[in-house]
């Protein structure tokens, strides 16, 4: 700062003789020609301007230096801390309390605190306080429900309904939901199975993200639980707990085995039925040949009736098995989306509402997991955008039904998902999909129709008939950052980046 001041002073000094000479010349103006006078006046004006400019620069520099001085990096006393808080956290009582507490403790140890450390500490404490306040909300709500005399099951259901979607306690809510469902399913099972499932629930760590999948593995390995119950649980829950390509393949394999098992049982029962049919025919023939007063007739008639009863039972069993047999090898991956194993061995994600399937790239070759994952996750933004009639503009060329999406289509899906902050290294959860739908709905907040909105947001270029990926990412970033804001405010913000762009 001092150097700058000296430099500027030197510049001013160097300009002074010129100004003096100009002043002295102006005193003798009577003896100058008009041309000379004009020239001097011009020079005079220029020099004044230069002086003003130098002065202005000097002021700016002094101001900058003062500002720098204000932005000290170390806070060594309470006054400096207060000054820092006034500048950076005006009227923020919470920040004041947090930072003073931290500062006093450091002071006791004879340490000054850097601005960076104190800022990070305030940020971290504020985040934690928000999380803990969510827990307090649950605590209070739970106490209120208990006072009302609600049962635990009711309390749990009400808590799930109230706090579903609260990010900070999502682990608890998800576990409460899954275990409550499993608990009710187990209640209808025979005593031995019920006991085995309850014992697995008892061991579960409800604060763990992986608690439920661990319990599902334990159920699948339990010798006390029948295969039918295992399959029922697997079909009921696996969809919701399938987050990787391997999980999906495993579940499809399970469904395939289940289907094959039923088909085998139907085939065995059908053989039994044919054999019974044949036996009944033979016995009836035999009966016809017998004289009416033959004592053997009664025996044969009884045998035929017995066989007919067995036949009826076998037919009922076949009908029951036919009902249980899955029509195809598929399971519900997410609400409205099913994973399917096609007869040719390929796999696809079916978007039920649109009767549209996205085929997954073959996984016979190594390193295809990312390709597979992106093709699966592509189905979620695709449906959201399709519902808003803009999918065909975003994914250009259009996605074809029951075909493998191209790399560029998968990349767009990835761009949307990752820009919105979702983890694209796993299959999106139900919660993620809900948020994704909400986020993407912001693309059509404008007054126009689908394509018009994209043009208005400068995402779609009508002349080249293509989208500007950078622009799309910018818009989605604003959408992500404005999740807590009103739609109108988000749209305003999007428009602002539009004008900046």
């Amino acid at each position, binding site marked *: 700062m001092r150097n700058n001041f000296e430099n500027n002073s030197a510049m001013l000094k160097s300009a002074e003789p010129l100004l003096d000479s100009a002043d002295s010349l102006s005193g003798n103006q009577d003896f100058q020609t008009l041309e000379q006078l004009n020239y001097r006046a011009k020079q005079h004006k220029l020099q004044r301007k230069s002086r003003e400019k130098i002065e202005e620069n000097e002021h700016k520099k002094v101001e900058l230096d003062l500002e720098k001085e204000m932005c000290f990096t170390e806070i060594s006393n309470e006054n400096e801390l207060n000054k820092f808080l006034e500048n950076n956290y005006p009227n923020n009582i919470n920040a004041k309390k947090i930072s003073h507490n931290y500062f006093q403790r450091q002071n*006791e140890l004879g340490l000054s605190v850097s601005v960076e450390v104190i800022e990070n500490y305030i940020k971290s404490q504020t985040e934690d306080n928000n999380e803990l306040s969510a827990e307090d909300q649950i605590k209070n709500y739970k106490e209120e429900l208990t006072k009302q005399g609600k049962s635990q099951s009711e309390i749990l259901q009400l808590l799930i309904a109230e706090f579903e979607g609260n990010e900070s306690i999502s682990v608890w809510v998800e576990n409460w939901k899954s275990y409550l469902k499993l608990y009710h399913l187990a209640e209808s099972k025979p005593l031995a199975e019920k006991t085995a499932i309850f014992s697995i629930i008892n061991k579960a760590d409800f604060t*763990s993200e992986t608690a439920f999948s661990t319990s599902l593995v334990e159920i699948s390995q339990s010798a006390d639980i029948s295969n039918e119950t295992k399959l029922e649980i697997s079909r009921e829950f696996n969809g919701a707990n399938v987050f990787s390509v391997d999980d999906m393949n495993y579940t499809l394999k399970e469904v395939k085995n289940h289907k094959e098992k039923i088909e085998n049982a139907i085939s065995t029962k059908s053989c039994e039925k044919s054999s019974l049919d044949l036996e009944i025919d033979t016995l009836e023939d035999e009966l016809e040949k017998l004289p009416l007063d033959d004592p053997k007739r009664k025996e044969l008639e009884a045998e035929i009736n017995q066989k007919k009863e067995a036949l009826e039972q076998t037919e009922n069993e076949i009908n029951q098995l036919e009902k249980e047999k899955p029509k195809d090898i598929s399971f519900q991956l997410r609400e409205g989306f099913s994973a399917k194993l096609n007869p040719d061995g390929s796999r696809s994600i079916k978007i039920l509402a649109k009767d549209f399937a996205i085929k997954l790239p073959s996984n016979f070759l190594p390193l295809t997991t990312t390709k597979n994952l992106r093709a699966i996750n592509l189905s979620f933004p695709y449906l959201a955008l399709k519902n808003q009639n803009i999918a065909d503009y975003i994914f250009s060329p259009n996605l074809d039904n029951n075909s493998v999406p191209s790399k560029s289509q998968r990349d767009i899906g990835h761009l949307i998902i990752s820009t919105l902050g979702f983890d694209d290294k796993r299959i999106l959860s139900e919660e993620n999909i809900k948020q994704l739908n909400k986020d993407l709905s912001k693309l059509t907040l404008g007054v126009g129709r689908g394509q018009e909105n994209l043009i208005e947001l400068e995402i779609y270029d009508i002349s080249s008939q293509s989208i500007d990926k950078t622009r799309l990412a910018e818009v989605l970033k604003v959408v992500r950052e404005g999740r807590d804001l009103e739609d109108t405010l988000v749209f305003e913000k999007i428009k602002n980046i539009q004008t900046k762009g």
Partner: protein
Amino acid sequence: MKILKVIAIALLFTATACAQKTETTTTTKKLDYSLIDYSKRSNIIKHPENLTGDEKAIFQHKFFQKLNSKETENLAPQIVKIEFAKLGITTEEKRQFQNAYSFFMSKYTSHKKSCENWYFHFKDLAPDSQN
């Protein structure tokens, strides 16, 4: 004399019973923090297994693990300094020390509060307790 003896014994029994009752009431009201396992995850530290360096050392330090959230919050700076020194975190490396101290006072203390919340207020909502 005999009557007096009987009355004295009866009074003694009543007094003991009353004392026992009061004691039980006090113990049921008092929260037993020793039952809480702070080495487990919480809503604040969701993946303790991912902690590294000083944060991991603080999280796993036996002395700190025994403290409840209030005790952690009110721990005198000098004691923290002594315990940090045992973990190789000294004031000579000011920046490292202060980062560790920030973690201790914010994340670690809040983690304990969250563990306590779970144990005292939500654990009973696990379906197993409905059995």
